[in-house]
């Protein structure tokens, strides 16, 4: 019974997209952490990418709406911080969707090393690796602004974290 409810809740919640990167669902992003069913009450656990991510309250609202549409009322959305989100939580499908959308996906692993060392981010438009960082802080907390030297196009890079 509760396993069935959890599966329905997961299906509904996992379809919610990030309001700032609408090609990614919160499941692709790894923002959707868990769904717990206890005494018939559904609790959805989400985690922020960055502490101050302003999209969190909107995501919480959309999760509640998606669940209500699926006939699950009275669900709670809870924010959890541990384990901390890193770009490793981003699924392979999510990385591919980002690239297709024109955002370079984060480099795998490496966190701190990648933060200070040389990086060669592939341009999501033409694939060239002759690229440069224009600004480390971009249009949202999770992105930096880069430019491709080969095709000249600027692009967003989803920061490794």
């Amino acid at each position, binding site marked *: 019974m509760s396993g069935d409810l959890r599966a329905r809740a997961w299906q509904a919640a996992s379809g919610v997209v990030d309001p700032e990167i609408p090609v990614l669902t919160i499941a692709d992003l790894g923002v959707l952490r868990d769904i717990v069913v206890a005494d018939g009450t559904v609790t959805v656990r989400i985690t922020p990418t960055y*502490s*101050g991510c302003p999209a969190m309250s909107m995501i919480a609202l959309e999760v509640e709406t998606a669940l209500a549409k699926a006939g699950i009322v009275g669900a709670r959305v809870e924010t959890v911080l*541990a384990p901390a989100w890193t770009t490793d939580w981003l699924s392979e499908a999510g990385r591919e969707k980002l690239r297709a959308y024109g955002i370079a996906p984060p480099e795998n692993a490496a966190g701190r090393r990648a933060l200070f060392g040389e990086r060669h981010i592939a341009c999501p438009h033409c694939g060239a690796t002759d690229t440069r960082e224009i*600004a*480390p802080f*971009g249009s949202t907390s999770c992105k930096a602004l880069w430019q491709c030297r080969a095709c000249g196009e600027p692009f967003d890079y989803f920061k490794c974290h």
Partner: protein
Amino acid sequence: MATTSIRVAETPLVLYALRRADDALILSHRLSQWIGRGPTLEEEMAFGNFGLDLIGQARALYAYAAAIEAAGHDEDDFAYLRDASQYRNLLLVEQPNGDFAVTMLRQLFYSAFADFYWRAMMTSRDATLAAIAAKSEKESAYHFSHAAEWVIRLGDGTAESHARTETACEALWPFTGEMFESDAAERELCEAGVIIDPASLRAPWRARLGEVFAAAGLALPSPDRWMQRGGRSGRHSEHLGHLLAEMQILPRSFPGAEW
């Protein structure tokens, strides 16, 4: 102001959470004051991003303080309904923005500390604090790296940018000692493995700054110079009152106002 301030029961843990939350909130408010005035659009974005990260950290810490105080206060009450003497932040973070050199150097001093601090706090026996630390550590690493790049550029730039960075350092240095201090309340938490002793970060902080200053062609002031203190116990510079007046006027004048 129409609304009276709340009274907070400052147990050691509540006090600790408020101190760290206040650091993040006040610095974030200072950074937000650059919006619309930044030297370039990219730097405004950087300040906006730093500010957002810090507000996120402050919210998590205020929410935790509210949960352990269990007196019905929430994050907004802590932010909007305490007077300057109830704020527990470092004097460093409330210092006015000054010019770009002052803002960047203040960011460098704080983030070089915060980065080490939160990384060390990830081993806290308090699961909530360890989780907040794990998030904050990743963010302060970015803040430090950005501030360090700018301080190197300013120190190693023109004669004017070099001179201004030296002046900024003279002005801010006396506020750096407070980061490494703790009192009886914090020592109690430290012995219980809940928090770390910030004094242990003094040497690594100085070594790290030394690298940045060397690359910037700047001289790191002596650690033995006289240091200001008082923020942690609510004795602030006059600047905090002005900052709070601006930050709190709306919720104080229109209690319960919503957008």
